[in-house]
């Protein structure tokens, strides 16, 4: 039984419970993953908001370990798909296999062999190495939460959470995800290289005895409750308008666009980007034990939400202007409050 099903359970109790669950989950993950608190936080945003997360980082930074640990803590079915160039869509989704079995059966029968996509926590490793056809099979499942095999639609079990990884080093022989499909990921989380202290701790943990594998912290129902509760978090029109202003300002053709955006951006974020900002903001608020979204929540989620949705122009790429720099300028230049209110707040 979840808090939502308890009779007379108030929203406050549920929010409090949700925060507690998330904190517990983070602590469990931290037993295995050293450092990377922000990465873990952002991945949990994706989980709570009901979206999917794209992890990008150099090899060996613990992306796969993070996903495995997370799935272990969530007591959810985990599956991993290692994308290679020869991976077929049916390798992802599964296929019907002809079984020639008992002498009593004539000609055999087809049996669905489900692919790895039928997990609940799916790790799509190096998604950019598979062909676009194979990528689309996964992306379709991410969007629809179902797969179609031989004309039969098979729903995927909720919660369905995809964590895809990308290796930014080896670009030869890869198939970068097109922008339209990148847009399906709620967040793009950059996994940074560990600091010296973190690396030292990693070495300590991983070169000694086998570490402890944490047990399940949250059940499936609790995860579902988190996702449902996330949708119930209140958001004001002012926050929604702020999210809209941010997304609009990322468009170089908009009047609100800054000179940097006009120079370095070819395409800005769209509607899905604004939706993702709000959902991620709700997840942030919920994980902090609040029932309403604030401007700071939206600002905090701006980078992971928008960085894979803003396409740089040639000039931006040539000048080495990173998307994160563009997003920094957006959050700095786009006011959260109207000017009149801001002046009064500042005491002017």
């Amino acid at each position, binding site marked *: 039984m979840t808090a939502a099903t308890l009779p007379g359970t108030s929203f406050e109790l549920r929010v409090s419970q949700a925060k507690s669950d998330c904190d517990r989950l983070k602590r469990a993950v931290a037993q295995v993953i050293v450092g990377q608190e922000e990465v873990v936080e952002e991945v949990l945003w994706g989980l709570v908001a009901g979206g999917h997360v794209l992890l990008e980082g150099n090899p060996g930074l613990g992306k796969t370990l993070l996903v495995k640990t997370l799935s272990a803590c969530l007591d959810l079915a985990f599956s991993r798909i290692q994308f290679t160039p020869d991976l077929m869509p049916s390798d992802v989704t599964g296929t019907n296999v002809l079984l020639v079995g008992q002498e009593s059966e004539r000609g055999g029968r087809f049996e669905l062999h489900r692919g790895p996509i039928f997990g609940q926590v799916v790790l799509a490793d190096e998604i950019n190495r598979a062909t676009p056809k194979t990528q689309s099979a996964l992306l379709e499942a991410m969007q629809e939460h179902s797969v179609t095999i031989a004309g039969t639609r098979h729903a995927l079990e909720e919660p369905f959470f995809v964590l895809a990884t990308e290796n930014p080093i080896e670009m030869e022989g890869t198939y970068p995800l097109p922008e339209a499909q990148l847009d399906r990921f709620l967040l793009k989380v950059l996994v940074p290289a560990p600091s010296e202290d973190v690396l030292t701790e990693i070495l300590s943990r991983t070169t000694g005895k086998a570490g402890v594998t944490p047990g399940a912290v949250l059940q499936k129902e609790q995860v579902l409750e988190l996702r449902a509760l996330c949708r119930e978090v209140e958001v004001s029109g002012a926050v929604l308008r702020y999210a809209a202003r941010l997304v609009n300002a990322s468009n170089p053709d908009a009047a609100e666009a800054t000179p940097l955006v006009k120079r370095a951006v070819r395409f800005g974020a769209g509607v899905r980007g604004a939706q993702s900002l709000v959902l991620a903001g709700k997840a942030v608020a919920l994980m902090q034990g609040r029932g309403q979204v604030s401007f700071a929540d939206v600002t905090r989620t701006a980078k992971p939400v928008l960085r894979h949705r803003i396409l740089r122009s040639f000039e931006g790429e040539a000048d080495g202007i990173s998307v994160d720099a563009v997003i920094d300028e957006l959050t700095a230049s786009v006011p959260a409050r109207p000017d009149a*209110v801001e002046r*009064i707040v500042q005491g002017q």
Partner: protein
Amino acid sequence: MAGAAESSDFKERFGRFAGRVRRRLWLRYVLSGACAGAGAGVPLALVLWWLREPEYRLHAFALATLAGALAGAVLAARRRLDDGAVALFLDARLKTAEAIVTAVELGDTGNGWSRRVAAEALSDDRENATRPRLFQRRHALLPLCAALAGWVASLPLRELPPVAAKPSGAEQVKLENLAGLEQIEALERLHGLTPEQERRMKHLAEQARELREALRRGLEKREALSRIAKLRDAIAAEKLTLGDQENRAGLDAAVAELEKRALTAKAAKELSEGDLTAFDEEMQRLAMLAEQKDREAAREALKDAARRAREKGARSLADALEREQRALEKAQSKAEALRELARRLEGAMDESGREAARDFAQSPNPEAQRKLAEAMERALKRLTEEERKKLAENLRKNLEGGGPGGASPMTREQLEDMAKRLEQKGADKLLEEQLRELAKRDPSEDAARERGLGEADRGGAEAQRGLGVIPTPGGQGQGRPGGLSQERQGAPGGPRGGDKSGGEGPGDHAGETKRLDAEELRSKANVRMLPGAPMHAASQGRAPARAGESANQLGTGVLGDVGPGEVSAVEGTEVPEEYREQVGRYFEP
């Protein structure tokens, strides 16, 4: 139910906080407006100081400040924050992560989380944290401007820069017709004592005409006044100087001779004052006396006076008296002829004519003479041709028989001429002319000339008045117009009145004199009425006033205070009675 209570509680709290925030913001706008108004009020006060406005500098500043405050209030009303904006402000101040604005916008919808959090945050103990800043740096302008305005209000009015005065009279005047010049131009019609004098008088007339023409074109005022003054001086120089050193002894002797007879006493007085015109008029009057002996006595007196003057070496006086004598004789003959005719026409005259004849006989004067002549004219018109001829015959017979008793040759000549005209057919016009000629006064040439010169001098004075200047009494001629010697006058000081006109006194006329501490001011003047322009009676008083103000105000200084027994401060002075009023008016504030 609980939700409704929560909602109500939140709305009440939010309303309270929002009201405080809005009031404070309104006050800030009003203060800012007042600062702007004060900022504009200081230059306004400065402008008023520059314009030398004594009283309203502070008022102007206050009004400007008030206007600014009102404008601020209006602006505050227009920029009133709505509930959402106020909620955002409260969220920022209370750091409630937009719970208040979420609660305000969602209202009674939603799950109530934000409403509860917001209500909890809007507790009274957190009111101070939600106050918008009231005073800003620019508000310091208000006391600063107020201090500046106070200083400006206390500034003394600035002094007017000294204006370089234009020389008096430098302005141009342009007049089509300056009254008075025509009298100077009339000098050319006068007979001069000598051809030289006639030439000079013609020249003066010409100068007057040139001056008129110059004024028509435009002339500097002082130039015009200078030329008029010179004309007047020249006119005065042409007057007979009977009282000068050469003629003084003769004048005294001639006057003494005339004074011997009561009949000519008045004539003696006129002659002693040098007024030849009045002397001539008196002699003309004596010429018309009814009694022959009176007429003779007057003629003899004049003859003796001329002789005495010549004996004393006063040649010009003697000549003048002799000319007066001839005029007297001529006037006598006219009067005799007129009288004789009146006697002849007595039957033909109407009652008014007879009355005019009686008046002429009793008090012969020019008016009676004129009326008599008119009556005779009417009588003559009524005569038939036959009656005229008869009258003419009677006149001729009378003349052949020796004429009217005591008639002078001139009278006889007049009567012969009358008889001749009476005989002519249709001689009405001629008779009229002759009668008018008989009635006309013929002043002596000297008197006529003196009168003309006097008229010219008065014309000059009038011209000076026309240019806005008080004319001096009489011109500054070489000769002094008449007047007895000091011994004859017997008055201290002598007739000096006309000599000082036009000159400046010995006082210092630069700047202003110091105030004199005195209880009263009294005046004393010895004045003598001189022929010429009358004394002006109007004057403006000047009184102390505040610096920078117009000085042409009625003052109430010491001149306004008079002693109990005095009227206009001149009661107890030696000012002659006839001048007290004028002198007193001079000292009126």
